[in-house]
């Protein structure tokens, strides 16, 4: 039961909220959150089945943000989709807040799993997907990972398991913005040939422009095939704010003063 917005409008609102949240909270990871704004907007607007008035409904699709550092984007999309009051976004990163920098489920309707340490989400998603198959559930399990996160060996344990057990109800979405914490992915631990790696592990792989909503809708639609799905989303870190795009700096930097004003203006004029 998504909102009446288009996915493009939702993505815009998510970006706008993310910039305000990281500004108010003086928090980091704005580039990582902007990178996934289009992906989560399409998921929550067009793909996932949910009911914000009954967030634990048993037949809901499960969504796990494994790259928990982009928590601001999830809190924003949940607020704009009716799970939590929009006002609470102002509390992000503040003293006494439940909206932590890394996504937490405690007291936040719609968050399936608390994450923050990388390499946890996919394994839990695998368990949920396996459970659904055993219980005859028809819902899907979608897990969004970062590219740098794919350095974690735990993911490859989960990837092996999901293919061996033919978890066709599981979709891993990778935010492949090519930049991790300190440098580019290529200069840190190269993932290429990335698609081939997933395919060699037995997954059905689709590559898509992670900012093209039409293409995302098609790629994330799921399939009836028995093998698990991987959607590699080619994205731009900091997407939507020119001076943050493709910049290692904006993994940690927080927009203040003129930078914040420039970011807001750019989004308002978009």
């Amino acid at each position, binding site marked *: 039961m998504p909102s009446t917005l288009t996915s493009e409008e939702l993505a815009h609102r998510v970006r706008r909220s993310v910039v305000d949240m990281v500004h108010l909270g003086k928090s980091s990871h704005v580039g990582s959150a902007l990178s996934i704004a289009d992906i989560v907007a399409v998921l929550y607007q067009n793909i996932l089945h949910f009911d914000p008035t009954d967030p634990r409904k048993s037949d809901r699709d499960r969504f796990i943000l494994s790259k928990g550092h982009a928590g601001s984007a999830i809190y924003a999309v949940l607020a704009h989709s009716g799970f939590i009051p929009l006002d609470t976004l102002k509390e992000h990163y503040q003293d006494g807040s439940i909206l932590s920098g890394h996504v937490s489920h405690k007291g936040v309707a719609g968050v399936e799993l608390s994450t*923050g340490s990388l390499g*946890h989400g996919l*394994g*839990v998603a695998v*368990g*949920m997907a396996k459970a659904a198959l055993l219980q005859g*559930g028809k819902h899907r399990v979608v897990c969004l990972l970062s590219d740098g996160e794919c350095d974690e060996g735990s993911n490859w*344990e*989960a990837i*092996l398991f999901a293919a061996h057990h033919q978890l066709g109800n599981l979709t891993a979405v990778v935010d492949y913005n090519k930049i991790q914490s300190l440098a580019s992915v290529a200069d840190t631990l190269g993932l290429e040939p990335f698609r081939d790696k997933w395919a060699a592990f037995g997954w059905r792989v689709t590559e898509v422009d992670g900012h093209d909503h039409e293409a995302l809708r098609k790629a994330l639609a799921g399939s009836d095939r028995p093998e698990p799905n991987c959607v590699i989303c080619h994205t731009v870190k900091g997407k939507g704010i020119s001076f943050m795009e493709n910049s290692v700096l904006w993994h940690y930097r927080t927009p203040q003063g003129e930078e914040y004003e420039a970011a807001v203006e750019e989004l308002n004029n978009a």
Partner: protein
Amino acid sequence: MRDHVIGRLTELALEDPRIMLITGDLGFGVLDLYREKCASQFINAGVAEQNMTAMATGMAMEGFIVFTYSIANFPILRCLEQLRNDACYHDANVNVLAVGGGFSYGALGMSHHATEDLSIMRALPNMKVVVPSDPWQAAIAIDSLVDSPGPSYLRIDKSSAGFEKPSEGGFDLGKGRWIRRGQDVAIIGSGGILAECVVAANILAENDVAAGVLEMATIKPIDEDAVRAAALQFPLIVTVEEHSIIGGLGGAVAEVMAQEGCGTPLVRIGLGDIYSSVVGSQQYLRNRYGMDAAAIVGRVQDALA
């Protein structure tokens, strides 16, 4: 002990389809009965403890009562963060069955000696830590863990204390059990090594020292009332565990006693702050590292002298 645990788990799983056993590719021969009778409630996760534990959490979130199975350190230390962030933070019903407690696999070497498991598991919020003394008690503990929500750690010993099963009771989660009454020293022990405590108490009795023996089959939540009462009643408290003296049974008892402020002396018997690099049978290593009956007697006599 492990056969009793798996036997009881098999009986329970036959009645309750929510029970799921996931092994990290261990349990050759041991898990056969369960696999045969409850095939749809069994998964071999492969040699991949991180995924095993994360997946167990995901399944528990969907309503399963999950048991993970492996040798002591593997299902807790390799995947410690999955236990902390996934299972424990989400209070998921993930129960770790760890065979090879203490020096059970003594000849296999340090990698297979579980000597810090209790302290590390005890530090995790929501985690229950259970160390049965005998196979029959381990089987009862399984029932308790199935019935209680949230995560747990069950340490399965190769040795056993040899206590008789009482006609009723015998294990109460979070409760200590007096095995023997005395007044000169209270020896508090956990697991199969309680057999050494009882032998030590017998030797002490021959030397006019009346030792009480308190079995502490649950390390967390520790039975604070029993520890407090013992500390007030006895002039000396001794803890015995096949584990580091840091943070396990001895640590838990020390915390309660310090809080009580009764000033009763405490002797913690167990492995010092070292790795057990010598190999040998469980009995040999108890002797080698100063935690067998003779060592307990010596430590008690020194403390009372």
